[in-house]
């Protein structure tokens, strides 16, 4: 991916003036703190400016800044359509990923209400653009760390739908053998590092994964190790200490990590504006010396452009980036949430910006794909999701013998029993009935 067209500048020193000093066409200037966009729930009026307006370039927030990129971008390999952001293949890949995310989550809701899965299930409907926009740019060795709203992150990273569905059903064929559940999706093969139930808990883990990447390059001398870690978390997490501590450490050691804030404006029933003194999360990056970017998280192409630059920055060893994606969840916080607090007009506003319909429209209008081709993809995904459900249904439940496995990597950790033998050598241990 060419990174020449976009450049994320380092934040300017604190005592700089507000003029834009950089000779480059800045993607954004985090220090030019005149917020233009406003959140729908705030009292400020939403200002809608056409993306191609010449004034867009000077905007400080980058809701429309990415469109600068659109104009500056060098022609892609698609010679017929030199101004497009994606090729047909990329577009189809993104579309398929988002459709998979949406269908899967819809199926989860069905299955939940049919009593196939229990507990806390948090669905990702509406936020697919962030997952597809970022994760589809990663290699297999790159790591993804998420929160409890992690089904689609796992799917985008490559975990098979049947493994995720089995995990949700609590079957032994699940990606975590049924031991994790909805909020703990892990995959060593695809480098999905979870799945965390407490917010903010995963951010240090992501920082650690990025640390390993740097360690491998600099201490273990694996010169080509440029693995990047993406940490996904929400707006509520941005008021948590772990967030700030990790921003500091990642910036301090220039770790190859991208902090992706999925700002869907609500933390269960707490509006972001009621919880946060300064709601513009991207501004918190420059306080630590990290570039902060704000992007429209309902537009997968914009997200992808920003992601490209942030990930490339990390790969080059230039350090972390904080990306705030303004997005929205169409469903409640979890399947147990009645979702009464959110305004109908707000929901309607974002429903009109559904990322899947937006991408479909873009591809059809720019003749990247026909409606029929997209329908084929939708049908294929329907089959994948149904097959996943069938697979999960027919998979066995974990047996008792699974209870005590995996508590310790080295089961000698259960200790020595009264008879002098390690407890893990007790035959009852493998049955799962041993007293430990």
């Amino acid at each position, binding site marked *: 991916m060419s990174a020449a067209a976009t450049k994320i500048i380092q934040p300017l020193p604190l005592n700089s003036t507000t003029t834009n000093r950089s000779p480059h066409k800045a993607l954004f200037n985090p220090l030019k703190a005149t917020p233009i966009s406003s959140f729908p729930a705030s009292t400020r009026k939403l200002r809608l400016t056409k993306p191609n307006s010449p004034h867009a370039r000077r905007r400080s927030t980058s809701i429309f800044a990415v469109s600068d990129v659109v104009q500056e971008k060098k022609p892609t390999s698609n010679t017929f359509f030199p101004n497009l952001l994606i090729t047909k293949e990329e577009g189809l890949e993104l579309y398929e990923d988002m459709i998979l995310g949406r269908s899967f989550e819809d199926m989860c809701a069905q299955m939940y209400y049919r009593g196939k899965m229990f507990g806390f299930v948090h669905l990702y409907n509406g936020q697919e653009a962030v997952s597809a926009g970022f994760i589809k740019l990663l290699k297999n060795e790159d790591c993804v760390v998420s929160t409890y709203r992690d089904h689609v992150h796992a799917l985008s990273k490559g975990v098979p739908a049947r493994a995720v569905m089995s995990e949700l059903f609590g079957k032994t064929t699940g990606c975590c053998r049924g031991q994790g559940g909805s909020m703990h999706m892990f995959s060593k093969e695809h480098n999905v590092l979870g799945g965390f139930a407490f917010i903010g*808990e995963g951010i240090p883990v992501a920082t650690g994964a990025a640390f390993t990447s740097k360690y491998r390059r600099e201490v273990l001398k694996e010169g080509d190790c440029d693995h990047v870690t993406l940490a996904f978390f929400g707006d509520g997490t941005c008021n948590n200490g772990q967030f700030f*501590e990790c921003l500091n*450490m990642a910036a301090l050691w220039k770790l190859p990590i991208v902090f992706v804030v999925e700002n869907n404006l609500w933390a269960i029933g707490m509006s972001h504006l009621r919880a946060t003194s300064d709601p513009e999360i991207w501004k918190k990056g420059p306080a630590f010396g990290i570039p902060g970017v704000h992007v429209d998280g309902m537009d997968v192409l914009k997200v992808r452009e920003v992601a490209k630059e942030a990930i490339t920055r990390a790969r080059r060893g230039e350090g972390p980036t904080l990306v705030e994606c303004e997005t929205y969840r169409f469903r409640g916080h979890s399947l147990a949430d009645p979702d009464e607090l959110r305004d109908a007009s707000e929901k309607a506003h974002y429903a009109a910006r559904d990322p899947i319909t937006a991408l479909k429209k873009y591809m059809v209008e720019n003749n990247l794909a026909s409606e029929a081709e997209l329908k084929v993809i939708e049908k294929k995904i329907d089959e994948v999701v149904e097959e996943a459900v069938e697979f999960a249904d027919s998979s066995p439940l974990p047996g008792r013998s699974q209870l005590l496995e*995996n508590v310790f990597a080295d089961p000698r950790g259960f200790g020595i029993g009264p008879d002098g033998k390690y407890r893990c050598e007790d035959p009852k241990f493998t049955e799962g009935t041993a007293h*430990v």
Partner: protein
Amino acid sequence: MAVVFQGIGATAALTSATSVDSKKLYILSRRLVSETKSTFMVVRSDGRLNSGSNRRAQKLITNAVATKADSSPATKPGHELLLFEALREGLEEEMERDARVCVMGEDVGHYGGSYKVTKDLANKYGDLRVLDTPIAENSFTGMAIGAAMTGLRPIVEGMNMGFLLLAFNQISNNCGMLHYTSGGQFTIPVVIRGPGGVGRQLGAEHSQRLESYFQSIPGIQMVACSTPYNAKGLMKAAIRSENPVILFEHVLLYNLKERIPDEEYILNLEEAEMVRPGEHITILTYSRMRYHVMQAAKTLVNKGYDPEVIDIRSLKPFDLHTIGNSVKKTHRVLIVEECMRTGGIGASLTAAINEYFHDYLDAPVVCLSSQDVPTPYAGTLEEWTVVQPTQIVTAVEQLCR
């Protein structure tokens, strides 16, 4: 062979009034070494050198150094060092052996560690391998866990164990649980270590004993070191273990001196250490209280009792085999610990012994623990919050009536 000798001398200093000065401890130890002709003399509490008890003293000292399961006494004379140096030696050997072993913590790098356990390691291995972190325990512990999941073997140093309360979220939720919740996909071979326990008038917040708080967390192992020999051995074992291990050190024990073998040795994380075999009563202890117990043992021996002292070392899980064999032999148990009375290690151990060895007990299990009191600053008050040798002697006398 001088460890118990040093230990006894050390506890003499530890228990004297309020002056528990680690430097003084070291000096006292040195003086005792230079003044004696042989290592087989026991300094009695009244200052006499007793040759009559030599035979028992010999037995006492020989058995104090290593358990049967450990490697036999070194063929070469070995080398003397202090406990913090032993920890460093173990750490350095492991870092030399495996390039993935790294250290993270506050002031571990340039400063060399607040107790000098990582002294000079940053010069040798670089700033990334011996990482000075900002003061963010929760996050750098989480970072160590993330690094461990992705292939490194980090050692997290808590400057004081009490600071790890801030890391409780990561230790409980991630360190202990992620191996299980990921269905066994990710291992977390992390070592979390640091000094804890009641020091010399350090105040309540720096004198905490966290072993009781961490003991319920599934998926972690806890060990406590008490001598330079077992400190090095446990450090190495903890680093090599695939499980997350919390290694509890004690602020007052860092300057203990002992001769340890030159050759490499690793101790077993799950085993307890037989400090002194005996017949009348089993005394279970760990960390600093081992020295109070040995001090009391001196008095008890002179009074005609024969206590069996076991340093349990492995706080989670308990070595029920060694403990059980001892209970079956003596039928009386006294637990001496520095943990709080409520919900401490002693409480769990009492429950475990009652559950498994109830039939073998001639008397109820007695547990001597610290008072459920925030450790006061005043020296006299501080002394009364922890168990003193006189209390141990009284308890044994009562149990053995």
